[in-house]
């Protein structure tokens, strides 16, 4: 049935790989996305892939492979043919955490991948509070936490995600004690904050925005300026630049693909993302569009990402092996 659906989809929307004279790409490109379909990471790749396919004049298949917290997708692409037809679309931090926790794993961010393009700080993580609470800023929060160590509860995400780790960084930087209560993700964290079961919640800015608009919740701080909530100040502006696990997504190719193919892909991605229509499209859905493609730039960002996560133990990152 899956095959049938794909065939129908192809027939309806008429994607046919243009058989032109050029050598690359002359067949479909596969982007393996290591996040679940319909989520924020998946959506950004789908939106870009849609227009990228037109620019590259080939078909692009976005497939989701979420098993093993993204490790299986990373391993698959790392082991794929180094020709540019198989790419990894991933949250950079996801691959960085695996690498930091176990540098000898089959997929290592620095050893096995060549970053083609990085959408730097693609979406903000926000710390939310309740509109009816007295605590409106980070300094209010720190003052309150100093008075009652461990009494304030923050709903965070699963262990190892930036939703969780940024609270750890805040605790370290401000030398305060907050109780982190892990949930499955932004939606659950927000639900529990709305229900008054916790004092604060960490969430994605897109998920949080409707609740702030409705006047139920307030934004206390963001890790990077948010496209949908421009009024919420960053942690850095409130004196805590250490809370900076900015989420970036990256197009990663297996290391060692031919330079010519890499250049075609990088140029096409840059051209696609610079088109005003897609920019508008991405921004209206809450994405920050800060694309980095220069080789020196992306290599530096990759190393920075590793450094950021090296501040944590494998246990913190949720990647301790048995």
């Amino acid at each position: 049935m899956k095959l049938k659906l794909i065939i129908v989809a192809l027939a309806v929307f008429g994607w046919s790989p243009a058989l032109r004279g050029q050598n690359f790409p002359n067949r479909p490109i596969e982007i393996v996305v290591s996040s679940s379909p319909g989520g924020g990471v998946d959506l950004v790749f789908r939106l870009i892939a849609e227009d990228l396919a037109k620019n590259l004049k080939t078909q692009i298949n976005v497939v989701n492979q979420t098993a093993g917290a993204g490790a299986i997708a990373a391993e698959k692409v790392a082991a794929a043919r180094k020709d540019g037809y198989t790419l990894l679309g991933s949250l950079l931090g996801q691959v960085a955490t695996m690498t930091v926790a176990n540098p000898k794993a089959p997929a290592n961010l620095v050893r096995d991948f060549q970053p083609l393009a990085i959408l730097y700080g693609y979406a903000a993580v926000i710390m939310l509070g309740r509109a009816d609470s007295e605590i409106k800023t980070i300094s209010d929060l720190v003052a309150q936490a100093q008075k009652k160590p461990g009494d304030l509860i923050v709903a965070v995400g699963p262990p190892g995600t930036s939703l969780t780790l940024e609270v750890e960084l805040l605790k370290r930087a401000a030398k305060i004690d907050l109780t982190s209560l892990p949930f499955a993700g932004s939606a659950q964290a927000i639900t529990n904050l709305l229900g008054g079961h916790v004092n604060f919640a960490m969430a994605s800015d897109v998920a949080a925005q409707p609740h702030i608009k409705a006047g139920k919740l307030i934004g206390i701080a963001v890790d990077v300026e948010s496209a949908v909530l421009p009024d919420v100040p960053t942690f850095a502006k409130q004196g805590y630049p250490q809370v900076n696990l900015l989420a970036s997504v990256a197009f990663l190719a297996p290391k060692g693909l031919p330079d010519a193919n890499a250049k075609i892909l990088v140029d096409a991605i840059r051209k696609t993302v610079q088109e005003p229509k897609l920019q508008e499209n991405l921004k209206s859905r809450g994405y920050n569009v800060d694309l980095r493609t220069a080789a020196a730039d992306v290599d530096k960002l990759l190393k920075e990402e590793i450094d950021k996560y090296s501040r944590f133990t494998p246990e913190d990152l949720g990647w301790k092996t048995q």
Partner: protein
Amino acid sequence: MDTFHLLAQGILTAASPLNLLYGFLGVLLGTLVGVLPGLGPAGAIALLLPLALHAPPLAYLIMLFGITYGAQYGGSTTSILVNIPGEASSVITCIDGHAMARQGRAGPALGIAAFGSFIGGTLAIFGVAYLAPALAEFGLHFGPPEYAGLMLFGLTALVYLAHGPMDKALLMALFGSLLASVGLDPVTGQPRFTFDILVLRDGIGLTPVVIGLFGVSEVLVNLRARAGEVFQKTIERLLPTLQDWKDSALPITRGTILGFLLGAIPGLNVVIATFAAYAVEKKISRHPERFGRGAIEGVAAPETANNAASCSGWIPLLSLGLPTGSVTSLIFGALLIHGLAPGPLFIKNSPEIFWGVLGSMIIGNVLLIILNLPLIGLWIKVLRVPYFFLFPLILLFGIIGAYTTSGNVGDVVIMIIFGVVGYLMKRFAYEPTPMVLGLVIGPLLETAIRRSMIMSKGHIGIFFQRPIAAFFMGAALLMLLSPLLTRRRLGHEIIEKLGEQ
């Protein structure tokens, strides 16, 4: 405009040719993935996600919603016919539904499942239209301690799910919850029982286990037994009798209410609603001994409950913008693709979408009942298909289903392993249903208790100081102690036990 007019407006919008076409495609596809064991609505929606960028928003959403409730209609078909649930939410239907089929009453079983689905599904839409905001607020009162109470109360339903000896059922429930603990610890992130196998980090999924336990094992059992003996019986009739309707009227009513209320609580699996509906029917029945031997109430109540629950399951998403499971998360993504940010103001800001989708669900349910009743005759013919042809097909769809859920071969291996486990369980008369209950409730109960303990800094009082939590804790205790209080029943059971020995 009042709710009634808005809903009427929605029906009119949904009845436009384009929306109607997409709606029909949705419910048809939903029925199909519902019938096929292993394939579910989540897989189908994920597959259709790329179309979101091209299709008109409302029509596209109507199709996606159609898949979700269409699947609840289809799920019972294979449960009844071949004892293999098409969806996890039809696991419980196997017990009495398949027993009915063995008695030559597959027609009435399929019929009551379809009518129950229609009634539960349609009433729940009106429930959503009138009660969504209020129920959404109510759902927010469920924090970790309340979940812990509710889950503990849910576990007491075990008593009514077991047909054989209680000790075996308990053992299976325990086995199920142990299985659920495989994977990353939800609080600390440390791997448990993963043996450094990457796939096991994600835990053991419900879908591959259910296909294995019910589907693969059934195929294995039939390999061993003389195939085809079951359905030599003549099939008496295709639709429920008047007596069937009398027996089912109240179970359908109760199934609707229970399913609707449980579905509105964020994060509660529809499976739990079906188990609860079954347990309630058996508990209040004057003849509980009929359950497990083809009681039509055992089909009517859970099949109604799963439709009502899957409908009210939209409340947290539509009125608050909070996705609560894999299917709702996918629809959340689809709404985002169309630039419709679901949130507390969604109904106010996008009324044409909200009421259009609700309207389409009313039309869709009518389409589904029209589609499903004639299909009963066809399905019954499927029973005449020789096993050597039918079962390889079931196995094939099982494998496809297990694979598409996660896109991982590991899940296919898990499915096959649980096929063998399920075969052994059948050989030694262990029931799989309590195990599914353990697998569904186990992780919810664990995270709820551990989160509660973090909140209270280790004080157990948190479960009794908050009114809703205390209510469920009390109810669970009462359920467990009630056999001791009602001495007559206890005496009866002891006599029964002695009689068995």
